[in-house]
């Protein structure tokens, strides 16, 4: 079938080149040098640490905020139009990444950004005099949350919808308050979905390149995708296999993430009708 031929040429063979190349020496023989070099080079280890940290922070914060906003939009009493407005907007914002997102945050919180100017001129508190910068790690995290929160809303909304009304009624009939309902029923039922969604957010942030590249191209925050990009543009490393080894490292992290995600997904659907 042409489908399989296509995936072979454009997906599996190129991916295999990365995997094989990661274990090839400069002269062609097979070696673990490239991979051990990552483990031994402080700057490369640091890049993985920063990448993982940013992904963790935005997955946890984005997951928490996304869940709270999704629950607020879905729960009884919230008008329907608010719910659909948030659903629609999340669909757009989750796909609004990359270069434009970076600029939107520069216009908001850059040195002459609208919010920065407001804080500096009206409240006489310039965040740039207090160590903040949109072009660094915090800035990247703030920008990533702009697509992480909507993605969380999209992914978790069906699970919140699945919390059955009868459960909350049954528990309150038995004398439980809201807190006890969440402690003993709501959170245990939602837990696999929540964790699964946050793992998805982690991978989403870990693989992102464009936003971080555009925000930090001047400051040089070392993230793994950015190092790979610099490697491809040919101005940092001399060893072409280093980029492949870095990419292989990313693949390992993402594959491990999938291994956690798939069983969680299975558990999450246990309570669905």
């Amino acid at each position, binding site marked *: *079938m042409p489908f399989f031929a296509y995936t072979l040429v*454009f997906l599996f063979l190129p991916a295999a080149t990365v995997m094989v190349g990661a274990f090839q020496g400069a002269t062609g023989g097979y070696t673990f040098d490239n991979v051990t070099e990552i483990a031994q080079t402080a700057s490369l280890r640091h890049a993985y640490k920063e990448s993982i940290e940013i992904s963790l922070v935005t997955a946890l914060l984005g997951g928490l905020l996304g869940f709270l906003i999704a629950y607020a939009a879905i729960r009884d009493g*919230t008008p329907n139009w608010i719910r659909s407005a948030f659903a629609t907007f999340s669909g757009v*914002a989750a796909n609004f990444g990359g270069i434009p997102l970076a*600029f939107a945050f520069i216009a908001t919180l850059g040195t002459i950004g609208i919010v920065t100017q407001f804080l500096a001129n009206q409240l006489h508190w310039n965040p740039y005099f207090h160590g903040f910068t949109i072009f660094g790690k915090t800035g990247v995290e703030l920008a990533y949350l702009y697509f992480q929160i909507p993605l969380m809303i*999209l992914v978790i909304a069906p699970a919140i919808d699945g919390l059955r009304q009868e459960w909350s009624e049954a528990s309150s009939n038995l004398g439980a308050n809201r807190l006890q309902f969440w402690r003993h029923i709501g959170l245990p039922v939602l837990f696999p979905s929540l964790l699964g969604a946050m793992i998805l957010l982690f991978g989403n942030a870990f693989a992102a390149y464009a936003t971080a*590249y555009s925000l930090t191209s001047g400051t040089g925050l070392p993230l793994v995708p950015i190092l*790979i990009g610099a490697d491809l543009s040919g101005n940092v490393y001399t060893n072409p296999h280093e980029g492949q080894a870095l990419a292989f490292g990313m693949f390992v992290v993402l594959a491990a993430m999938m291994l956690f995600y798939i069983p969680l997904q299975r558990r999450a659907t246990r309570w669905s009708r």
Partner: protein
Amino acid sequence: MSRRRIAPSAIVWLLVGAVYFLLPLLATFLFSIKDQNTGKCCSLASYGFILHDPQFWTTLKLSFRLALETIVVGLLLFVPTLYWVHLRLPKLRPVIGFIALVPFVIPPIILVVGLLQFFKDDVHAPFWFLGKPDLFLVGAYVILAFPYIYFSLDAGFRSIDVHTLTEASQSLGAGWPTTLGRVIIPNIRVAALAGAFLTLAIVMGEFTIASLSTFHTFPTYIQFINESQAYPAAAVTLMSFAITWAAMLSLLLIGRQGGRRTVRVGPGR
């Protein structure tokens, strides 16, 4: 016994969300109407600058053409395959589903390393292939669009009775092309369109592969403007956001027309 009033804590979180989502857009808008020389409000010069830049039109047209080509190739690959799998080879369905998920584990930044190495150094693809965005980039973008096209179409195929439709069509004397073209495709049209609009949104925003294989598409143009022109950058950023909006709203609209929810969005980039 559902409460009618909106809960106070819900108001707080919805406001937090609304402010976080809208503030950057508002700031970008305010930026875009500043005067290029004085930095004061209000001027439409930034929009004029972008609209009069020939590079804007060239890159926008290129990205749009690439998006259309990606959609056509993606649908040509998936529609017959999924039709056949749903009809004759249901055992293969998980395999196709797995392949469609692989791009989540091999994101653009890894894929581009592999593509450049594979085509440049391993198979020594000729320049007519490597130098043409319509071949090299579309080749890669179809892979990026896999999950979105697959989930849209798979939902579409599951919601129709492939067997009955095929048998009915063939007992009336139709051959395979007629069955596929006049019976199956009209029935999965909404699903195919949903996948198409998601793909459009992805291709119009894809930066990683385009910039690292040194092609000049719409997103690389935006980055170029970002680096050189602050206020026009705000204008072009808003235009790019409008394109994403248009694609996603069309998706919602056709979803509603089709009477079922086919909207499925996953992680991009």
